[in-house]
């Protein structure tokens, strides 16, 4: 029997495969396709305190091996989530992680405050890539100080572990990672989508109404692997890799580099069974290579001699 379980310190996962926020709805939508009990965890769609209307369409553009989205975090808000969705979701035996959004630091704290009273949540994942209304729409993730301030505020109100989801749209992601760790983050997940643009050459207009969208999918995987590599050597807290994972091989690359778990995102849209297939693929890989515990391959990248 291969042991796929992963210990993140604050929580033990059945396996390293977590469904990523924004691509898995509120989880229940996937029950007709897969057994949700098989997943390491589910990160539900980002929640602001109140329901959010989201952006005007078009919201999606396909890119080469990727997807640019500008959904705008349309969502139901904490009240409806707690009353209608969470009671059904907590019946499943998998880690339920809530992706927490905010227009300002206090909103993140109030979402966490509200959800702390509800049972059946394993951890929060802070989406610090939300535009901040008090700071000209700049998101906290872009600066070590704003990252520190929101993470430490949320850590004060939260009775649960806090995973901080970093943005790739920075010069030095390790610097932001260290700042989140210093503010008390229990883990880091990286990364959110890459800022991207698509142009309609006939109209010479941007395809997306607000010009920018976020790029996800296989196109970003090599970039994120590099970022995970740069971060794992600098921080003590566990790192969760997110970006372009379609197969078990993709997930293994992240684990070997040093991520302790991964989130599967865009793949869910294309193949609703993707997460389970990846889990099966991990078992197969371990069996083929005589690996009893998948934890044993984490951070085992063989670096060329002479490199640290």
């Amino acid at each position, binding site marked *: 029997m291969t042991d796929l379980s992963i210990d993140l310190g604050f929580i033990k996962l059945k396996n390293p495969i977590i469904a990523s926020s924004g691509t898995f*709805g509120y989880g229940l*939508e996937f029950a007709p396709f897969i057994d949700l009990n098989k997943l390491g965890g589910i990160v539900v769609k980002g929640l602001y305190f109140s329901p959010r209307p989201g952006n005007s369409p078009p919201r999606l553009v396909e890119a080469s091996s990727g997807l640019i*989205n500008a*959904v705008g975090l*349309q969502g139901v808000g904490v009240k409806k989530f707690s009353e209608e969705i969470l009671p059904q979701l907590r019946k499943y035996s998998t880690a339920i992680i809530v992706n927490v959004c905010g227009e300002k630091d206090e909103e993140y704290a109030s979402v966490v405050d509200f959800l702390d009273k509800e049972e059946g949540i394993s951890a929060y994942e802070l989406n610090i890539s939300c535009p901040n209304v008090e700071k000209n729409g700049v998101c906290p993730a872009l600066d070590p100080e704003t990252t520190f301030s929101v993470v430490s505020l949320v850590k004060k109100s939260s009775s649960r572990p806090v995973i901080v989801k970093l943005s790739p749209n920075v010069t030095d992601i390790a610097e932001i990672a260290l700042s989140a760790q210093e503010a008390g983050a229990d883990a880091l997940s990286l990364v959110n989508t890459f800022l991207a643009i698509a142009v309609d050459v006939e109209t010479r207009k941007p395809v997306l109404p607000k010009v920018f969208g976020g790029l996800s999918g296989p*196109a970003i995987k090599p970039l994120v692997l590099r970022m995970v590599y740069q971060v794992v050597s600098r921080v003590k807290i566990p790192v969760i890799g997110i970006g372009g994972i379609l197969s078990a091989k993709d997930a293994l690359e992240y684990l070997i580099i040093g991520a302790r778990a991964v989130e599967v995102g865009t793949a869910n849209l294309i193949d609703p069974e993707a997460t389970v297939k990846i889990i099966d693929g991990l078992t197969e890989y371990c069996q083929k290579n005589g690996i009893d515990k998948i934890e044993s391959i984490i951070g085992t990248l063989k670096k060329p001699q002479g490199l640290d």
Partner: protein
Amino acid sequence: MIKDSQARIIDKKSWNNYYLFSLESPRIASQAHPGQFIMIRISHHPHPLLRRPLSIHSKDEKSIDIFFQVSGLGTDLLSQKKVGDILDILGPLGKGFHGGASLNGKDVVAAGGGRGIAPLYFLAKELRSHGALVKIFYGGKSLEDIPLKEKFKRENFDLYCSTDDGSFGFKGFITEYLKTELEKFTPSRIFSCGPEEMMKKIAQFAAKKNIPAEFSLESVMGCGFGVCWGCVKRIKKNGEEGWVKICEEGPVFSSEEIVWTEEEK
């Protein structure tokens, strides 16, 4: 379970840029309603990444048909698939047209533009089986853009064709043809699918004449089953207005529900 990863292409027809595939999928065939759609995985490689949404054009006991126009990489690659190839599809998805026995003995119109004719064949056959008297309005840029006209004729549907260039039938848009004909009769309902500008015009004169109308909307879709929130349309329902998912709540909406996009200045 709405997934069928083993749908075999059992027939393929083509007219220039337009294609009609028959896919063997007994489960989808037994469940499908007119106006519903399927999501087709084009490639098992990472590009093109997303599935493509295509409405169900007709169904048999064990198979469904899709009708599409090549309009980009996804449909181009799809058009190159051969009889015997296996497709991975999700469906039937979404909510279809409303029809049924209440339209027995009534005149109804199904108006389609270009590839938008796709779901209307399935609908027209279903409406007729409920006793409705279906008039098909089928428009395209040119004669080659209305390749299904023979198919409708063979089924003895009342067929009204238009082409923008006058190469076949009424010269002008299908909306103009329909408007002229509506001077002569008033249908109990209009069903339509096609370019947004076309459907918007039909919605306007249907409203003026108090004719209930339903429209099948098109959108880029990320998933097709309601999780990505990528395919929204402004919809009014129960006094509330907001961005509603076309894949889950649609793709068919009624006149009163749709808030049409303002024309850009």
